[in-house]
Each structure stands twice: as C-alpha cells, then as structure tokens.
C-alpha cells in the first residue's frame, strides 16, 4: 500500500498495461518527451521508448483516426486528447467512427482503444478548457464511458479499459490530478460497469461522478454531523455500461435520490438515472428525485464565478437537507 496522487496513478496505470502487453501503444500531444501538460505521463517515454510512446502534431483527428486504424488491425492504443473540450474537433471519430464500425460491418471490425482526456472544471481555464463532456459521450451507442474519482480507481479502471474489446472514453478530472489516495501494491484491474457505494446511509442516495464524488462525500459528512441526515454516496464510475443495479438497490434502501453532476443541466447523465429510477423504482421513492448540476451556461473563468456555478459540498448538503426536511 502506498499513497499516490491521481496524476501518478495515471502514469502507473498506463505503465502497468504497457509492461503487460507489447501491443499497448500510447500517442498524443506532448505526452512523450514533455511528459504531458498535466505531468500525468512523465517517464513513460523513457521507460517504453519512442516506438511505443509517441508525440503527435496538434492534429486531434489524426490522433484518434490513427488510434482507430491501429486498433482495427491488432494494436491496443491509448490516445490522449489533452482537454476533453477538444473532442469537438475530432468528434467524428467519437460519434461516427469508433462506435459504429463494429455494427455497420456486422461484427467484422474491432475497435479496442482507450481515449484518455482531461475533463472538468476548477482550473479557472474558462469555457473552452473546463467542460465536463461525459454526456457528449454517453449518448452514443457503441462507446463505453468511464470517469474515476480516486487514484486506485484510475489504475484499476484504466487497466479494465485497455483490456476491454470496445472503444472506451476515459475521463480524468483535471482538478483531481493533485489529490492523493491509498493504492495497493501490485497489479490492479477493476471491472467496467460497476458503481461503488463509498459511504453507506439510510436517508438518501447521492449519485456522483469524478470531482463530484469527494464533494458529495464532504456534503454527506456535513449532513450527518450538522443535521443528523444519513446519506449513501454512490460513485457511479462508469456511465456506460451503467450499474443500475447498485443505484436501484441503494434507492430501494434510502427511498430518496439525488444526482450530483458537473455537466451543464440539459441531458446530463443524472437525467438518465432519474428516468431509470422513475421507471423502475417509482414506488420506492418517498419524494421527487433531485438533480444538482452546473447551471446551463458556458463556464466562466474567474475563480469567484467558477466556484459558484459548480456544485459545492455546501450546495449539495443544503439541497439534500431542504428536500428531506420540507
């Protein structure tokens, strides 16, 4: 067991998989000699050499297209798109190419690749370098979508993603890179499509993803100590496949549902979870499900503004308290 940052967990996760399988290759902008703009790939170039860890031009379409062509013909590429906002310039691959090739070819074409990207706000970068785009990806049949919240999950879910035979979008949260957590020694391999109950409780279920997970845990602690409200916190971890059993099981126990989403309001993943719970567990609910999200606006750059729009532990706690006590 060692304490590791989320950033170093990315390095360890990639290294674990590259050491295991020579067909795992890694490409992206500034990822090799520079070690990544977030320093989340430092040392990989030195460890695995220039044939396996490759710097690319600023050509997001070429990065994802090349990853796909390599995946179709036998490699297991990990491609980095520096900021998830840049998905918009290579969205053809994410929306049209990776996820449809197997289906359109009636199962002939395989696309086992991972796209890693820096997602989310908190860095005061403004509206084009701060978005949470998990909902852009979740809506496309054929993709898998993963977003870890802890260093241990980074390694385990990254390993599961690399070993998965389908295209996986792996969303790392930029604000979590410096955060630390305990990580066991040795190989870690997790399972896609599994949510985790991080805190057990009986009064309400809070479903959260990535940076919203530690904020929800903090909110749950406040609710317990200040108001005696006992919340269960579910780290959704994987949007596709979605572990609805864990979520429905938790709602069946607590009878209240809150989702905490960093994405803007419309069509966020929480809406899908609320819809599933409404369909399948309506009579388990003691009150309306509530979505806590960033408002439907582009993200502002200034710290004082950005801090207000993202769900905070205080806003989460206050929303839960108000709804439970009203």
């Amino acid at each position: 067991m060692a304490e590791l940052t989320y950033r170093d967990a990315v390095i360890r996760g990639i290294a674990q998989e590259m050491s295991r399988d020579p067909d795992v290759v890694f490409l992206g902008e500034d990822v090799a000699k520079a070690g990544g703009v977030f320093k989340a790939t430092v040392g990989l170039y030195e460890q695995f050499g220039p044939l396996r860890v490759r710097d690319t031009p600023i050509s997001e379409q070429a990065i994802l297209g090349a990853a796909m062509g390599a995946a179709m013909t036998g490699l297991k590429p990990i491609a980095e798109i520096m900021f998830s906002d840049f998905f918009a310039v290579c969205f053809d691959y994410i929306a049209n190419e990776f996820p449809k090739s197997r289906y359109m070819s009636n199962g002939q074409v395989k696309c086992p690749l991972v796209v890693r990207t820096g997602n989310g706000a908190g860095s005061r970068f403004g509206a084009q370098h701060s978005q949470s785009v998990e909902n852009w990806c979740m809506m496309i049949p054929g993709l898998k979508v993963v977003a870890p919240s802890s260093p241990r999950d980074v390694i385990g879910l990254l390993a599961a993603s690399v070993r998965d035979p389908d295209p996986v979008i792996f969303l790392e949260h930029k604000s979590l890179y410096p955060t630390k957590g305990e990580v066991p020694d040795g190989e870690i391999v997790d399972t896609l499509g599994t949510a985790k109950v991080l805190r057990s409780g009986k009064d309400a279920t809070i479903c959260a993803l990535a940076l919203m997970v530690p904020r929800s845990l903090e909110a749950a602690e406040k609710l317990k100590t200040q108001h005696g409200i006992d919340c269960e916190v579910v780290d959704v971890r994987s949007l596709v496949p979605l572990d609805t059993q864990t979520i429905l099981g938790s709602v069946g126990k607590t009878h209240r549902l809150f989702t905490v989403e960093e994405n803007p309001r419309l069509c966020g993943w929480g809406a899908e979870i609320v819809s599933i719970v409404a369909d399948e567990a309506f009579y388990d609910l003691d009150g309306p499900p509530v979505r806590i999200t960033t408002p439907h606006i582009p993200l502002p750059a200034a710290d004082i503004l950005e801090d207000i729009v993202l769900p905070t532990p205080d806003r989460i706690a206050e929303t839960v308290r108000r709804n439970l006590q009203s």
Partner: protein
Amino acid sequence: MATAKDRAQAKAGSGLNDDIGEQKRLELYRTQVVIREAEQRAYDLFLQNLVKGTSHLSLGQEAVAAGFAGAMKPGDLSFCTYRGHAHTLARGVPVEKVLGELMQRDNGLMRGKGGSMHLTSVDHGVMGSYAIIGAHLPIACGAAWRAQYKGDKDVSVCFFGDGTTNIGAFHEALNFAAVWKLPVIFVCENNLYMEYTPISDVTAVPQPAADRASAYGLERILIDGNDADVVYRAAQNAFERARAGEGPSLIECLTYRYSGHSRADPAKYRPEGELDRWKLRDPIKIYRERLLQFGVAEKVITDIDAQVRKIVDDATEACKAAPPPPLDIIATDVYADGGWAWRN
C-alpha cells in the same frame, strides 16, 4: 495469345512498354469489367427500385480501382469512401455480396447493417468504406502505424475523391503520415466534381491533391486515372516505396464519373459534351485496345466479358431471391460481447 513478335510490334508501334505482362493485363481488364458490369447493374436495379437508400457509382473510374488492386498483395489494406463499390469488388469480394448489400438482403456483405456506403470485407483486406469525408485518411495512417510498429510488410491504401482535399482530416493525415514515415498510399480520384460543384471552383490550386504534395514534402504525382497500366505502374512505385520504409505517397488520378454524385443526381451541372469527350477515353475501351495491341485474341476478351456478365446475372438473381435480413440482428454487434447492453 500474343507472340513475341506481336509484342515487339506493339511496343514499337505505340511506344507502349510491355513491362506488365499478359496475365496481369488480363486481370486488370477483368477487374474493370467486373466493376463496370456490377455498377451498371446497380444502376438498373435502382431504376427498378430494388436498390434502396443511396448509391454512389464508379462508372468511368474503373481503372483506378483495378490498377491499385492489381498492384496489391494479399494482406494489403484498402480504405474506401462511400463511393467504394469499385474498390471492394477490385479486391475480389463476390459481386453477389456487394449487390446483396445494396439491395439490403440477408446475403449482403454486412447483411444489410451497413448499406451501400459502408462496404467492408476484412477477409479481403477491405477495411471499410467511410461516409464522412476525410475520416478514413487518419484511420489508414493508424493501420500503417501498426504495420510499421510490428514490422509487418503490408501497406494501407486510402482512396478518396477530389472534394476530400479541402477537409482538415486530409491535411492532418498527410502531415502525420509524412512525419511518421508511414507505409500508406493516399489515392485521390479527381473526377472534377465534389458532389455537384466543380472542384476547381472551390480550390486554391489547379490540382487539388498533387499541388498540395509539396506541403508535406512529398513528390507531386499526377497521373492518367483512365489508363489502368498507368495506374498500375504508379501504384507499384508507391508500394515499393512504402515497403522499403520510405514513407507515404500521394497520387492524384485524373478521371471522370459518368453518373451523378449519387443516385439522386442527374448531373445536369455538367457542360454539354464533357461526358462524351471523356467517354472517348473510356478506361475499358482504352484497355480493350491495349490488349489487342499486345496481340491478345478478341475471343479471349469477349470470353471475359461473357463470364463477367454471367457472374453479375447470377448474382442479381441470387439477390432477388434472397430474403431480407432477420429482425434479430438489429441489436447485435453494438459491443464486442455481441449485444447492445448498456446497463446491467
């Protein structure tokens, strides 16, 4: 069959080079006839409302597909556009499989799940037909990267139209392939029109691909895309370069499509006489004359024509008799487990 004397005469008379050999020439001719007959049939079946959806024909462009396929080895990979019937057939995919997909029958290449614009046959090295302009150039780079990384000797060949040269992915892929020295060949079929608009109306240089080659440190290669011999030789040079580790090639083939962009397009935008002028340089006409020049007996040529016609006739009947795809394939192969489950 041609004698040595015939060959010598043909060479002397036309200035033609007999480097290709009779066997290869008969193969190139046959491939062109297969494409011509199958595409013409696809058009006829469309008029009978038996080809559904859209279709983009390569009538008039047969020499490009035949010339490149003739220079490929087993294991080489083709990446095509939505105008991909020709390149799929050229790799030896059965006519019935192609027509079956166009007719959206269960005997189609992808059982009707892909359609005319997405013909794919991995077993034949046809790694897909891509309907988003430019998308497959970077993908071909990736397949070539795998060959380079693993020390495989196969080459990836990416076919696209003149319109593709103005989209970003074209330029990203060309630069990427050149910087990484990838074994990939980019083949631009310049048929003068993007969809409806002449490429020259919207492009800063006269030759949309060839005039861009220097920007990526590549040789300017502009060839007659209606002469399968010319295409075959250019292809061979590019394959040699790719297999020797010398990197990518960009080849612009001048050609012309006889039909509109897609089945919905009567091509009324073409100036009068243009089509007729191009038909004087019809690739199959050119090649029949070439074979005769080299002393191939007329009977050999007409036998090929008849054989191909029968293959296409038989395929047509088989497709007409084939059932539509079963409904239970609707939700198969979304994910690698064979299904579509996005939740537990």
